[in-house]
């Protein structure tokens, strides 16, 4: 099939990108020296049986029946460390090593959502500083 060889590495294990930070598994990735695609399954839908109490309260406050935009938030991996992509700063925010990671992606995603909410709503988020400096209204 045309183009098949250009695929990135397949995700086989939840710790794959913690154990191998470069993650250049496929032949094409090794050839070009860079990782292709996401380091987690972006299409993984949440398992609501694993919802945390914090996220349940967030849904209630916002008046939502589900996780809404957080359904797109997953725990990813950068330089061999767990991290979450924050669209508001267009960058990765790392998960402190002191936080113990569960052994499955669904529970890790719930932790990622919780950490991201707390960070985005805090005064230490870069958007808060940017707003102080540049807000027009």
């Amino acid at each position: 099939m045309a183009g098949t060889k250009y695929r990135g590495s397949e995700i086989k294990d939840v710790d794959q990108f913690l154990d191998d930070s470069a993650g250049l598994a496929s032949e094409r990735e090794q050839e070009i020296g860079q990782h292709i695609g996401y380091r987690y399954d972006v299409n993984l839908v949440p398992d609501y049986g694993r919802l945390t109490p914090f996220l349940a309260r967030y849904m209630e406050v916002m008046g939502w029946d589900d996780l809404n935009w957080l359904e797109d938030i997953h725990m990813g991996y950068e330089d061999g460390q767990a991290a979450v992509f924050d669209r508001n700063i267009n960058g990765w925010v790392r998960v402190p090593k002191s936080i113990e990671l569960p052994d499955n992606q669904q529970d890790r995603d719930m932790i990622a959502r919780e950490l991201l909410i707390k960070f985005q709503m805090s005064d230490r988020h870069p958007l808060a500083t940017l707003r102080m400096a540049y807000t027009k209204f």
Partner: protein
Amino acid sequence: MAGVTGMDLRDMNQDERARALGMVSEQLTGRSMFVEFDESAEERFTYPWAPDVDYNRRTEFDTGEMSATEVNLKIRGLMAEGYGTIVVRNPRGRHSLGVGILSRLNLVFEGSLGYFGVGLIDGPNVRINGRVGWSCGENMMAGTVVVEKNAGSTFGAAIRGGDLVCKGSVGSRTGIDMKGGTIIVGGDTGALSGFMMQRGRMVICGDAGKNLGDSMYDGTIFVGGRIRSLGVDAVEAELTELDKAWLARKLTVNGLLPETGVGHFTKIVAGRQLWNYDNLEPTEKKLIL
């Protein structure tokens, strides 16, 4: 940043404010900025600058002869007063109504909207008791939008997050360039839906037009009816039990769950043949396309 008061900032020009707050200008070198979560961060659910609105405080107004800008400023003003539920009567198909709302709010439009309705929103729950024109929910970040009737083309263009629902049918290029979020269509969708989709989920309860998911990079499209044709690099995938549970939940919440359930839905994903396209040699591009 420490020691700078709001009063100090007010007396400064923009450059001085940026410097006082610790911001610097530098040439970008491609390296990542190191930011780490604070484990002990307090539990907050809204942005620090969001107005403190109460869903139980309700108000309504008629748009009368107001311009779109005046309507949007009126909504903003009511939120600043603490109203959490706002009903807008007679929107009269004006364009760009309800845009740029960046906090929680219940917003109801009693009538139809024109182009680019409720775009760029981040949090509110919007119900539109009418139809919408092109590009409803464009660049939406979070929240829910429910359109009770039909929608025009490019419904949910470049959506980043949240749930965008049309209970009727929508035009072509639904979810073009979508980068997240969920688009749900109770009826049919036109040609080139999911064009250049990068992630997120689209659920079409009825039929899908030609070239569904053309050039999609990632994301998932679920179709309950007939698919006229698939676009370049869109392929069928297995509908998992987790997918079924998620679909049933989403459709139930929006009152769109078919009597037959969700087992008949077709799942479409990217074939990933176009990944890393820029690294291909010109001759290889010809082979693929």
